């Protein structure tokens, strides 16, 4: 048996030109599929981790409350919710945010910006991802009116650390309120999800919005493990429901994104006619649902391209093998005369093609790993625009997963073996007499 396998392996290199021509196709298909899957896995990982480090929790709690026929966005009884989370999901940690969209005025220039109020002492999300161009986290943390601006925003205003600017907002009740902000830092970040945000202090923005002392915009819950996330969310839903909140989950992926991006706005009218506190609990899987759908579409297109290429390969296998069998008729006749059964001849040719596919798809995997390494360490891409979604420190995030690579190689080898069966079966059926006297 070993001799049979060794013979088949050796035969792969007998007609080098033909083998290489066919093998290159295997390599290209493997390369495309490996890079596509690495891109999908990388994008999913990058988006999830960047979201979790900035604008989403493993479970994100957002909501609205109804008072005297008016619906206000945001959460009330924030402290109660925090206690319930910690009691229901022990070991979890919590970040509370206050978001508003307001205009910032400086020396005759104004622009509407997204502000996020954080607790500078407990903040773990933003802090580690900021590269300060000027100022520092400590300066920001020690000034209750302090803010940190993105570099692009600072450039727009021509504002520097130490300057003061005026913020004017229409509060949730409709009344305008203003405040003075001190620029305590200017930052750059590679995290796409908070590139444009102005960070300030939670209490400052809540007071600016004239909101109650127990109000917030969103609560991010971080769990020690995200295994069984839906089940953990179900526990929390039940506990919050028992505490008098009207709880729900996002109905669509867009609802989940809205929940994460919720900012304070002015009120709307309520038609239900009773006061209530409504909470929406979105898991990180739901928040990234649209991304996953998009990536599945990318994978689908890649799969289609690969399918077309595999079809071309199938035709090539048929033609190639037929030519090979024609050239090796005497060899087939000799093997058959020596007592090899038809199945043996068929198996030999299938095995040869299987080895060919294995060798060249492995080369494809190696090439894919080289490309991944180049993008991960050598090639830097501009982080502006939507491309930033897929970048980490300017490098495209590609994650080649061993399982995916093994699957690609298995599929290609199986495909090659399957499509070589048709001509190989005919080779096996040739009798020794036909092999020595006829042309197949």
């Amino acid at each position: 048996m070993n001799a049979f396998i060794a013979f088949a392996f050796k035969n792969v290199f007998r007609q080098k030109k033909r083998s290489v021509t066919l093998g290159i196709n295997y390599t290209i298909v493997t390369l495309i599929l490996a890079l596509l899957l690495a891109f999908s896995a990388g994008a999913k990982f990058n988006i999830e981790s960047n979201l979790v480090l900035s604008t989403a929790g493993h479970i994100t709690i957002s909501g609205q409350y109804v008072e005297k026929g008016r619906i206000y966005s945001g959460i009330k009884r924030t402290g109660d919710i925090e206690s319930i989370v910690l009691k229901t999901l022990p070991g979890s940690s919590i970040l509370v945010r206050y978001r508003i969209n307001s205009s910032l005025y400086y020396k005759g220039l104004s622009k509407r910006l997204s502000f996020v109020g954080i607790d500078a002492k407990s903040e773990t999300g933003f802090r580690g991802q900021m590269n300060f161009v000027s100022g520092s986290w400590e300066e920001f943390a020690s000034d209750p009116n302090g803010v940190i601006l993105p570099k692009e925003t600072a450039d727009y205003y021509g504002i520097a650390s130490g300057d003061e600017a005026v913020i004017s907002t229409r509060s949730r009740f409709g009344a305008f309120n203003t405040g003075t902000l001190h620029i305590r830092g200017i930052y750059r970040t590679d995290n796409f999800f908070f590139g444009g945000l102005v960070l300030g202090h939670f209490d400052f923005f809540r007071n600016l919005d004239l909101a109650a002392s127990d109000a917030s915009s969103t609560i991010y819950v971080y769990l020690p493990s995200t295994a069984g996330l839906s089940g953990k969310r179900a526990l929390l839903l039940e506990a919050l429901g028992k505490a008098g909140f009207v709880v729900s989950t996002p109905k669509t992926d867009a609802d989940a994104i809205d929940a994460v991006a919720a900012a304070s706005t002015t009120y709307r009218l309520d038609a239900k006619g009773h006061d209530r506190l409504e909470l929406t609990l979105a898991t990180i899987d739901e928040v990234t649902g649209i991304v996953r759908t998009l990536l599945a579409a990318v994978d689908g297109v890649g799969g289609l391209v690969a399918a077309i290429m595999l079809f071309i390969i199938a035709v090539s296998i048929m033609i190639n093998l037929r030519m090979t069998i024609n050239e090796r008729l005497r060899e087939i006749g000799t093997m058959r005369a020596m007592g090899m059964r038809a199945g043996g001849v068929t198996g030999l040719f299938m095995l040869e093609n299987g080895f060919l596919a294995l060798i060249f798809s492995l080369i494809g995997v190696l090439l894919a790993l080289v490309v991944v390494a180049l993008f991960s360490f050598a090639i830097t891409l501009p982080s502006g625009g939507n491309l930033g979604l897929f970048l980490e420190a300017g490098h495209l995030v590609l994650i080649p997963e061993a399982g995916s690579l093994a699957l690609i190689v298995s599929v290609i080898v199986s495909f090659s073996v399957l499509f070589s069966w048709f001509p190989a079966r005919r080779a096996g059926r040739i009798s020794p007499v036909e092999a020595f006297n006829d042309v197949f």
Partner: protein
Amino acid sequence: MHHKFLSIVAFFAVLPVSAACFAQAGDAKSDPAATAIVKAFEDRLNLEGLDVTNTFNLVQKKEGETDRVLQVKVFRRDSADTFTLIFQYPESEKGKGYYRKGDDLFLYLPSTREFAYRNRKDDVGGSDIRTDMFGKSNLEDQYRLSLAGRATVSKWDCDVVRLEARQLDVSFPIQKWFVRKTDGLPVKVENYSASETLLRTIYYIDYRKLSGDRFIFTKLLAVDALEKGQKTLLTNDGIETGAIPNYVFTKAYLEEQSR
């Protein structure tokens, strides 16, 4: 150090204190003298018993930008505390409109054919003009009124009335109205934020007398205090006091006009 101390004072004192002030203003009674001044000009400017149709032309001037022009047709019936506004110019705004009934203000967007509930003092087309200028006003209901001295605006001696919001459902929680002594009409209004930063000043430049002792402003200038150099000039043309059909004061009318 001194600077930091002031920041902390500004943060911990001004904002919560200003919110607390409104809670107090909600219960406190107005100064009768201030109320009398406000009631006097409201009686003249509230056009109860009249249907008024007019066209506002707004020219918004901003430093370094070309002037922005808006034309809005207004149908007003103060006796029913209602008005309908329809944008007529520019083309991009045409068909858009507001419908107000009492405290409820709805913005109609022809692009989506939907009504959005808005604060009753929404700005008009992103200008410094707010919808509360177009209808009946009842400041005593929303604000605690007090006298804040006297001042001269242009050549007129004026009483200054300070308004503090009773509830936060108003655009400007603090206002100062400068009311001229000669005819009791306001000539200047300063609008402040909750933390008492001046946001906008309005100058009532001219009025036209309608029937009886009723007046309607024909020209005003709104100056933005935060956006330096931004001003909006509003002229009021084509004023008519003929009866307006009831269906004009409905949401359906706005929808119909956008078709």
